[in-house]
């Protein structure tokens, strides 16, 4: 994590000695000659100061509010503490502000000196943008007193800003129920919700007998409850499309944020939720119910490299671009993560190493990218239960996604698409992309696939209700 560089800044001071010595000699001035001693002294000085140890830095970051509304200011406070037992005389801290959140007040940077145990705090404000945004590790540069050696390190504190309104289960219920018909069924049975009362028939379970009615009138009756069958939904986040530019990163951030909220709503309604990434790197978490599972799913959305929007979109903000490999990927070793490539024994050359590069620099050949995604969809299909629905979150930035949707539908899995719309359409390129996206939406809708067109300033729940209302 740390690398040390020598700045060599005092090297030139010897010239001062040579100059003073030469002039003093030529002009026969002993006093001037003695000035050479100053240069000599400063040449030795960097050798005498202790070089900085590896900075032991603890970073704490708080964001208030943790889930701001889009456009709202979020105050960020970062506390940097010197955990070591030595002075850090020249410490430079640059916080890893998410690439898509503009800093609107203050600065996420600070240079200071820290005594052992001393701490400093940075305060600044960012403007929230729709989606999930992960802070990168703070970059820390430590110089020794003379400034000759510089140590670079990163200090991670996983912070995620989740921005956007929550989605209620009812909106989703419509969305998924529309096509599946397997959520709250109209079949009377042993659910929880009251369905109807009817005459007692032989063999009805005792606990469904309406004892009040029996006490009142002496007649046996049976209460039926609406049978609820829980659906199994795989959320599939399209992360690999459109290169690594800013608007693509913003779209991924919105998709990830929406996935988080939809997963929450689905789990609240007792459904099984799984998570997959569409594109590379590949991620798969099989559908399961329960809040523990939801926590794991959310952790994956927060920390897995697949779901980092614009991990290097803004590299020049940091002294040296903190490369994408610095993201705390180690925390993703939770259960349930299976890489198809790892199992397949890396069938494609460079597939494993390109896993994170494909998203971050967008420099992979298109063909490689699309075949990567085809493989991903193939693997996803193999893993999906035939009854599992797929909710694909995609900006619909390329035709490959349309093919993926068709592949899934052909395999018998019902697909619903939620697509965040393009932010600004101020250039010819973005306008053209928007037109193409509209065409893709029409194509999908023609084949009977509901597509939620989620505008940049629109509430997700409203968008979903609008779509389901229209198709009903």
């Amino acid at each position, binding site marked *: 994590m740390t690398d040390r560089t020598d700045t060599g800044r005092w090297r030139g001071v010897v010239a001062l000695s040579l100059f003073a010595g030469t002039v003093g000699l030529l002009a026969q001035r002993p*006093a001037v000659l003695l000035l050479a001693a100053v240069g*000599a002294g400063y040449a030795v000085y960097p050798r005498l100061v202790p070089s900085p140890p590896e900075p032991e830095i603890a970073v704490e970051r708080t964001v208030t509010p943790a889930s701001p509304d889009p456009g709202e200011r979020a105050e960020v406070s970062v506390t940097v503490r010197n955990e070591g037992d030595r002075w850090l005389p020249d410490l430079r801290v640059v916080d890893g502000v998410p690439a898509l959140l503009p800093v609107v007040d203050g600065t996420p*940077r600070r*240079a200071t000196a820290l005594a052992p145990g001393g701490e400093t705090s940075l305060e600044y404000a960012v403007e929230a943008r729709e989606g999930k945004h992960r802070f990168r590790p703070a970059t820390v540069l430590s110089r020794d*007193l003379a*400034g000759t050696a510089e140590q670079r390190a990163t200090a991670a504190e996983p912070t995620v800003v989740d921005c956007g309104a929550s989605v209620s289960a009812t909106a989703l219920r419509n969305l998924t129920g529309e096509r599946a018909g397997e959520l709250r069924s109209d079949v009377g049975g042993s659910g929880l919700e009251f369905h109807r009362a009817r005459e007692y028939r032989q063999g009805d379970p005792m606990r469904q007998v309406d004892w009040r009615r029996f006490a009142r009138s002496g007649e046996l009756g049976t209460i039926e409850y609406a049978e609820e069958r829980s659906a199994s939904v795989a959320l599939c986040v399209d992360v690999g499309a459109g290169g690594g530019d800013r608007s693509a990163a913003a779209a991924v951030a919105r998709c990830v944020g929406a996935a988080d909220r939809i997963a929450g709503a689905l789990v609240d309604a007792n459904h099984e939720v799984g998570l997959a990434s569409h594109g590379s790197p590949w991620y798969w978490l099989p559908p399961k119910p329960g809040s523990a599972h939801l926590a794991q799913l959310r952790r994956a959305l927060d920390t897995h490299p697949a779901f980092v929007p614009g991990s290097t979109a803004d590299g020049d*903000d940091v002294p040296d671009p903190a490369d994408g490999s610095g993201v705390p990927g180690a925390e993703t070793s939770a259960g349930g993560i299976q890489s198809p490539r790892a199992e397949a024994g890396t069938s494609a050359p460079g597939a494993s190493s390109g896993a994170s590069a494909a998203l971050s620099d967008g420099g992979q050949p298109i063909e490689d990218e699309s075949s990567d995604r085809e493989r991903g969809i193939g693997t996803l299909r193999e893993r999906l239960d035939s009854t599992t629905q797929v909710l694909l979150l995609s900006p619909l930035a390329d035709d490959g996604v349309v093919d993926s949707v068709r592949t899934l539908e052909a395999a018998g899995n019902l697909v619903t698409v939620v697509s965040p719309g393009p932010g600004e359409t101020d250039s010819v390129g973005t306008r053209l992309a928007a037109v193409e996206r509209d065409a893709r939406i029409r194509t999908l809708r023609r084949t009977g696939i509901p597509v939620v067109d989620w505008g940049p300033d629109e509430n997700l729940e409203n968008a979903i209700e609008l779509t389901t209302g229209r198709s009903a």
Partner: protein
Amino acid sequence: MSNATHRPAVPGAVLAVLSGAAAVALLLDAAAQWRALLAALAGIAVCGLGYAAWQRSEAGLGALVALAGAALLAVGFFLAATGPETTTHRLELLPGLLGLAVLAAGLLPVRAGRERTLVTVGTALLFVGVVASGVFRGSPLLALLAATVATVVAWDAGEQAVSLGRQVGRQAATARAVLMHSGGTILAGAVVALAALGVYRLNVTGLSLTALVALLAAGFVLILSLRN
């Protein structure tokens, strides 16, 4: 993304200019010289204010103020060139003033991307002024040593201001790091100056110049070999 301007950090830049001014001031003795230095310093300060106004997107006001600063600076140079009676007084003052102006130009910065060069050239000119004072007027050794240390401190602080500006930007708070770092440099300078003064008191200047040179050269070789 954050709208940080990667210009030399202010506390370090101010310290560098003040230290450079001290390097000049330590060797002055004529009132006319003082007037010239003060006029030049005032000019630099006003230029800095103008630059700050310009950075706050008040371009018109900033340009006006900076122009006034440049005029003051010109007055300083005029005073330095005409005020002092003797040529030696002028000769020791002019390189120093010029160095101060170049140093300030590097730290404002007049030309982004050339900060380091301007800082180095400016402090080199400051040192030329110090040596000129020693050669032409035979200033006392203590003043010469102090001025040399002040020159080094000016260079060091300027350099640090540039590197801080590149890494954390002008808006970031940097004063603590600057104080700590420059404190170390000043302390080291003080120790070196005292040591040199001690050597001087040992009456080494009574030695022949060749012996002194040989001594220094030997020390020099020692240092160079230590560094590699």
